[in-house]
């Protein structure tokens, strides 16, 4: 059986999610043994043309050129996996969706006319069919490995959609919200990171995006009781997954209150 071919693509992003592949130090060579890395510019100058069995797509759609490139990638890919918060919800750069893009350009660039950009930063699935999404800013490299392994044997990868709290309890961390009164987004955030923030004595700030059934209003009411000001809550929801529907909807309501 021929090895499945893999291509890695990048849109607006920090490169961290694709770096996760190279961060699999112990498994990288085995991965390279099992799959044919056909296009991965961050790692190799070798390049083989499509079609590809699997494409990993990092980053969000932010420029006019992106709009056509993502269509081309979709057309050459058997399975398209969107990796990371940028690719699955638009990432932190989707904060522009709430602002005036011209002003954003002016703030950063001396000659705005040189800059070609869209007014919004959007997820890959807003443009083409996505077969699988890996949440996280950044993704968890072991989830990426799980996807590769599952792919190779043809099973559904095990990717949790429940809340960070489950991982928090699994590792035996005491709840920072209950024990320390620290505002934590864990109860409405998707597991996957291993609940590292509470383990480091801070509240989760939501980098894996909304969990499968997030009750944002209930948590917001509790944050009120903890003394968190509403603008602070709004910003907490508007960070790495600002454009995720549940966070966007709730934060828009709170911002208007």
């Amino acid at each position, binding site marked *: 059986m021929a090895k499945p071919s893999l291509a890695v693509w990048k849109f607006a992003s*920090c490169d961290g999610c694709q770096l996760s592949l190279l961060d699999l130090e112990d498994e990288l060579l085995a991965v390279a043994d099992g799959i044919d890395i056909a296009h991965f510019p*961050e790692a190799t100058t070798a390049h083989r043309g499509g079609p590809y069995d699997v494409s990993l797509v990092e980053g969000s759609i932010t420029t006019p050129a992106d709009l056509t490139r993502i269509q081309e990638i979709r057309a050459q890919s058997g399975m398209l996996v969107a990796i990371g918060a940028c690719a699955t919800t638009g990432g*932190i750069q989707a904060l*522009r969706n709430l602002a005036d893009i011209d002003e954003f350009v002016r703030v*950063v660039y001396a000659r705005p006319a040189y800059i070609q950009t869209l007014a919004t930063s959007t997820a890959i699935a807003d443009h083409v069919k996505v077969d699988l999404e890996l949440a996280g800013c950044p993704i968890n490299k072991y989830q990426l490995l799980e996807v590769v392994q599952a792919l190779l044997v043809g099973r559904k990868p095990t990717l949790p959609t429940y809340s960070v709290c489950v991982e928090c309890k699994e590792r035996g961390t005491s709840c920072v919200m209950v024990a320390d009164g620290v505002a934590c987004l864990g109860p409405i955030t998707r597991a996957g990171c291993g609940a590292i923030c509470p383990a480091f004595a801070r509240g989760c700030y939501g980098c894996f995006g909304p969990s499968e059934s997030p009750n944002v209003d209930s948590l917001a009411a509790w944050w009120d009781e903890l003394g968190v000001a509403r603008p602070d809550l709004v910003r907490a929801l508007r960070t790495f997954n600002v454009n995720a529907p549940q966070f966007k909807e709730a934060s828009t309501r709170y911002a208007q209150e």
Partner: protein
Amino acid sequence: MHKNDTRRSFNVTELTRVEGEGALDVIVEGDEIIELKFRIFESPRFFEALLRGRRFDEVTDITARICGICPVAYQTSSANAIEDALGIQVGEPIRDLRRMLYFGEWIESHGLHVYLLHAPDFLGYHGGVELAQDSPDLVKRGLRLKRVGNRLMEVIGGREIHPINPRVGGFWKAIAKRDLDEMVPDLEWALEAALATVDWVSGFSYPDLEPDYEFVALHDPDEYAIIGGRIRSNRGIDIPVHEWGDVFEEDHIEWSNALVARIKGRGSYHVGPLARFNLNFEQLHPLARASAERHGLTPPVLNPFKTIMVRSVEMVHAAATCLDLIGRYESLGAPYAEAPLRESVGYGASEAPRGLLYHRYALDEEGLVTDAQIVPPTSQNQLQIEADLRQLLSGILDLDDDTIQHQLEQSIRNYDPCISCATHFLTLNLERR
């Protein structure tokens, strides 16, 4: 035969083995280089704009996301700047922990670059994975080095990409001495491996190229500067970080989504391992210095291709220094320092794996950011990269196109440019339109 062609062009449409997206356009007429553009077409993400209105304590988490390869650099420079703004003083134990975390990033980043991205150029491979087919043990050594760096970031920072533990004033959680002690065997191995790496890369053959650089780096008389210091150059610059804007400026060029930085009135300059090495050789760990001297590597080193040697020496320095720091580490009392909010401006810099990273923030009295400026190493090197390319190209125009293309690319990789961070620069003069 190429010699007499009237017009040739080389388009490296997609640069590989660099982080992010860049391209290079060159037009040559006869022996004359008509046009040479190092283009960065990475999509702009507008960090300086989106930071406005965020609270001071969110900045380290947000700026980390500028670059997945060197998040600690962004976290450190921005924490420095905000601590400067608020007048927060951090104690020695927090500084030590910060350095160890940062060294973790150096080892990870240098390990990745040396073994998987850069060495293949010298050995004729497409990349590290291809190299591994012939020399699995070598690549495994590189991966394990990288892993030690990552492990250090995980232990201190919570995870290797976008660590969650660093914050303004220090860390969320104090790291227990025993957790660091557990790193000792790994670091001892890494020290040996880094020494072996210096030996290995010293055997490569290096093209002759010795441009006349102005090197700029942080300098600290007591340590090989990484988390702070004064900005120095080999041509007389010696300023505190907050004077960056007096000496340097940023400009927006048409063909790039990155702003480029230059020394006012002088032009291009060079930041990164080579600059650090040449300016701070005396402060290197004795083991690192000895390993460099053993291979005749002493300042001034001007050959940009030799940065691979310098990176390897810096890995020796990082591992050896971490072992020393762990030896003297005592668990922190309070993991972070605080200070009352005030309307203020703060400046911060640190030495990212790729060179000087400068941040400036203005805060209002509620601690919200009103203005931000971030100048990453790649934008500071961009003009220098173009200058290097011109010089290199004029000397090799009689070679065939493929070789020229390869050498140009390799020359860019000397800088290990991290293009994804290079697109977030803000000009000093906000009024310019």
